[in-house]
């Protein structure tokens, strides 16, 4: 498989899994959590790296996901104490964990591949160099398998728990009364977001993770009238953004992550302006029609 196709494939699948998680976050008004989690998983990776002594251990995955959950839990604890508002809680917790991670890396792990640049910015261009081999035979880039695995996990999660997720996101109390534990669903969701962020960061960087958790979901939110359609639209918007971004990055020779995030922003902008019912133009026309005397 040519390297460019591999890159494109990884980009599309990663973008799609981020879009699924992002949709779950957006309808609950938690998009900024993606930002927090995608930063703090760095601490998990560092700690797991110290524990495992290498960068190839599955421990890294688990450690990172665990710290992602810790971030969410700490934030909620602060909110529950009623001393801090929700947004401030996020703003206090995640920079602390990220700062700790940066200190640990620069002080104790600066010699290894684990530098903050890779985490924040990622490097999709290198993805084709890491090969997956089975019995000595090259079966494609490793990133293809991780991103495909993640996408499968994300899709399986939303398909299997579709009605539960819809209920808990729309009306938490009703979910509780019906016996679908909101806390359990919430933490399952957060675990999925953390896992997706970890699985994606090393190929595309945490910035792109945030962009793809936020923009395609917001695009879909403007277009869709039902939760199912919103998920589908988010995945489609993510795939289009990924393809456009990769092509643009190749053509202009700029960073893949940057170009993909920009493309996702442009797709959102298009929806923002022109979405039939919810777009700016639509809203403007309706306001004008409303003002006109009958």
């Amino acid at each position, binding site marked *: 498989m040519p390297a460019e196709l591999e890159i494109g494939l990884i980009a599309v699948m990663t973008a799609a899994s981020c879009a699924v998680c992002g949709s779950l976050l957006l309808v609950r008004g938690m998009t900024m959590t993606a930002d927090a989690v995608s930063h703090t998983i760095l601490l998990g990776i560092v700690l797991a790296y110290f524990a495992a002594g290498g960068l190839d251990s599955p421990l890294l995955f688990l450690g990172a996901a665990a710290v992602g959950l810790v971030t969410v839990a700490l934030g909620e604890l602060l909110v529950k104490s009623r001393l801090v508002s929700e947004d401030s809680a996020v703003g206090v917790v995640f920079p602390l964990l990220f700062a700790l991670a940066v200190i640990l890396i620069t002080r104790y792990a600066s010699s290894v591949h684990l530098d903050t640049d890779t985490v924040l910015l990622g490097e999709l261009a290198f993805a084709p160099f890491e090969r997956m081999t089975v019995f000595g035979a090259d079966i494609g880039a490793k990133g293809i398998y991780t991103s495909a695995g993640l996408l499968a996990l994300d899709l399986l999660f939303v398909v299997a728990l579709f009605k539960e997720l819809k209920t808990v996101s729309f009306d938490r109390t009703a979910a509780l009364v019906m016996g679908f534990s909101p806390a359990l669903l919430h933490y399952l969701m957060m675990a999925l977001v953390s896992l997706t962020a970890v699985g994606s960061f090393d190929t595309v960087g945490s910035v792109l993770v945030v962009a793809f958790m936020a923009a395609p979901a917001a695009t879909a939110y403007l277009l869709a009238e039902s*939760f199912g359609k919103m998920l589908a639209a988010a995945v489609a918007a993510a795939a289009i953004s990924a393809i456009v971004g990769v092509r643009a990055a190749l053509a202009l020779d700029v960073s893949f992550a940057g170009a993909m995030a920009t493309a996702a922003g442009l797709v959102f902008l298009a929806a923002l302006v022109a979405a039939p019912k919810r777009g700016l133009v639509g809203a403007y026309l309706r306001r004008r029609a409303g003002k006109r005397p009958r």
Partner: protein
Amino acid sequence: MNTAAEVRHLTVSYGEKPVLEDVSLTIPRGSFAAIVGPNGAGKTTLMKTMLGLVKPLAGEVTIPARGRRGAVGYVPQSESIDRDFPISAYEVALMGRYASLGWFRRPGKADKSAAEECLRRVGMEKFASRQIGELSGGQQQRVFLARALAQDAEIYFLDEPLKGVDAVSERAIISILRGLCAEGKTVVMVHHDLRTVRDYFDWVSIINLGVVASGAVKDVFCERNIDRAYSRRAAEAAV
């Protein structure tokens, strides 16, 4: 007496001051019960505690029907829901069937036709495909009522379902709830408008931090009890 819900010595506090203090009351099965009281009396908190959403500091709530999945129905305060959520009226009604389905199982044909039937019962079948935020307050409440109907619960809790609702919707909602009580279901409702208590309900709990009075409307809904719940506070507020 056949009890649908019983509250014993309930004390609830969010911070350090109690919101409810030593509340005890019973609601008989098949009754249409109102919870009334001045603002800040703890009506919503009482309902939330009865539903198990708020953990009391002391005391207990017994709802015999709770053993069965989906036996407790709930209609939210209309402003507590996210009007922008991408969901249609029909999907909201269908949600009522989820309780009895349990985890992972998907709604089948029977569930779908039941949801449609419930939308018809509340007169909202024409709006089935509308996104929830495109409906008026009264219409939204009727959709939530359809969800509760679809759930086929034993006891229904409604938190001020008539707030911000037009007269047509109000009449429709009350007549449906009365129908439920006639079938032997119990309806408990936080209510604001004292003028309609006598017309609508047969059981009432007047609360203000504690229970001022609780019983059949004809027995306890008298000026003395209302004054005790309301005026004293008003007088204090005026000081």
